[in-house]
């Protein structure tokens, strides 16, 4: 067992990363909320004509629908682009990542559209095909580069290993996200007539609640009207959200169908895919592609800024981990042995040989431990 005298780094990162979906949702709502908030206050101060006030207030009520549409468009953009924006301490940067190469053992294979939710309810949240690769210690430098955090396996001390998520570009995911964005926009337009009942009940709620100032005590008739009107406004807002989301689901579903019926795009054609590599858990693999930092979650309320392959350009299978090696989880100690065995050369000396397709360099210690 070629375990090394060095521990993997699994602590928190301080660098910048491609934002997680929740961060994106936060940003969309914060942006729209701030814009509408300031706008609404100005209009209410500026003595705008009543009809204009009514329209603006009604539109403000649609913040939820508009927020969902914007969120789906942003998600679709991020799903289909290799170049991304990140926020750093110095400002906003536009990054594309770096070409990198790693090797290791595949510990998990996750296909796109797994589960009912991604396929039917929210096709725009589907993830590209993904494999997790437990790497030999030689690649810890790569996984820790750019001050990134690292996913680690849960193993006994000394065998804990670093692993990386590698995504295959999947055209179907990209098309479903775009279809969902178009569907959500159409849904939002269809939901616009609901402005009328929203306003009517909004007026009722505000009118009866306002009347509360006149009656210092309990005014039950007004109280009940107020409660019913507010409840209706809330229900109508939920209906708006439901119509927009239904539009997104239908659009995404149609786009999935279209994607399956059409040949692969040029983007997909120039990359390896999960389907043509036929990779399985336990395979030894070398992966080359674009690596960047993304914010990813591995468990409840725990997200890390980790390096990921977004996306794999080429992948090369190099055998299978023997069955006598513990696989739950894999450890870099065993993978070091498989990729960099000791062999006797022609001069009779024992030397370490590299079997990965990245480089012949075989120092197993990461630079921070040398």
């Amino acid at each position, binding site marked *: 067992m070629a375990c090394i005298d060095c521990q993997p780094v699994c602590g928190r990162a301080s660098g910048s990363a491609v934002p*997680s*979906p*929740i*961060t994106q*949702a*936060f*940003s969309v*709502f*914060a*942006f729209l*909320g701030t814009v*509408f*908030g300031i706008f*609404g*206050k100005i*209009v*209410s101060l500026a003595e705008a004509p009543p009809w204009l006030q*009514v329209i*603006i*207030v009604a539109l*403000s*009520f649609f*913040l939820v629908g508009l927020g969902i549409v914007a969120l789906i*468009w*942003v998600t679709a*953009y991020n799903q289909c682009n290799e170049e991304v*924006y*990140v*926020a750093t301490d110095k400002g*906003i940067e536009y990054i594309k990542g770096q070409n990198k190469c790693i090797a290791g053992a595949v510990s998990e294979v996750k296909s796109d559209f797994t589960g009912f*939710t991604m396929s039917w309810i*929210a096709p725009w*949240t589907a993830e590209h095909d993904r494999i997790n690769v437990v790497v030999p210690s030689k690649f810890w430098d790569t996984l820790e580069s750019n001050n990134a955090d690292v996913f680690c396996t849960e193993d006994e001390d000394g065998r804990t290993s670093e692993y990386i998520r590698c995504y295959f570009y999947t055209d179907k995911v990209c098309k479903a996200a775009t279809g969902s964005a178009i569907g959500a926009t159409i849904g939002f337009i269809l939901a616009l007539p609901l402005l009328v009942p929203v306003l009517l009940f*909004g*007026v009722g*709620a*505000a*009118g*009866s*609640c*306002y009347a*509360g*100032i006149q*009656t210092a005590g*309990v*005014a039950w008739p007004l*109280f009940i009207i*107020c*409660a019913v009107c*507010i*409840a209706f*406004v*809330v229900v109508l*807002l*939920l209906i708006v*959200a439901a119509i927009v989301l239904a539009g997104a689901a239908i659009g995404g579903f149609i786009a999935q169908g279209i994607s399956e019926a059409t040949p692969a795009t040029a983007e997909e054609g120039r990359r390896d895919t999960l389907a043509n590599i036929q990779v399985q858990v336990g395979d030894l693999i070398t992966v080359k592609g674009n690596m960047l930092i993304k914010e990813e*979650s591995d468990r*409840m*309320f725990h*997200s890390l800024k980790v390096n990921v392959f977004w996306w794999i350009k080429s992948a090369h299978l190099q055998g299978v981990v023997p069955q006598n090696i513990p696989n739950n989880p894999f450890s870099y100690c065993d993978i070091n042995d498989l990729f960099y065995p000791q062999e006797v050369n022609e001069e009779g000396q024992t030397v370490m040989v590299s079997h990965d397709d990245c480089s012949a360099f075989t120092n197993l210690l990461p630079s921070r431990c040398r």
Partner: protein
Amino acid sequence: MRTFLRLLSLFYPLSNRLGLCGNIGFIAGLLAGFIISTMAWAFRGFYMSNNQALVHALSLTLFTWIAVIYLLGILAKFTFRSVALPSLFNCLLTCFLTTFVCKWLDIFSFAWLAGMFIGALVGMTLCRINSLIEKT
């Protein structure tokens, strides 16, 4: 789209500081505060009695809870069972505090802003308490 993404990324550092719980509280507070604010913009002298504020807070809790469950379930891929109770508690506290703070300070037209702050604060505090409990 790129311009829109640039504008959005202005909020990323704030989102990073707040963490997941703060983000969820922030969104709940914003949605709750916004409904109150829009009424205040449209109707001058908008006011709520204590009972009406109670109804407001309860309806808003239901609405924001559904929105938050959707965000956590669909976007962050958490199971309903794992997030239902914590997020309900988060939304309940956020909506009640937002409604009653706005009522006491009479700042209904800025409820959206108050909601953001209160939501983020409630979310972060709940997460901090949760992590302290986990440690002990």
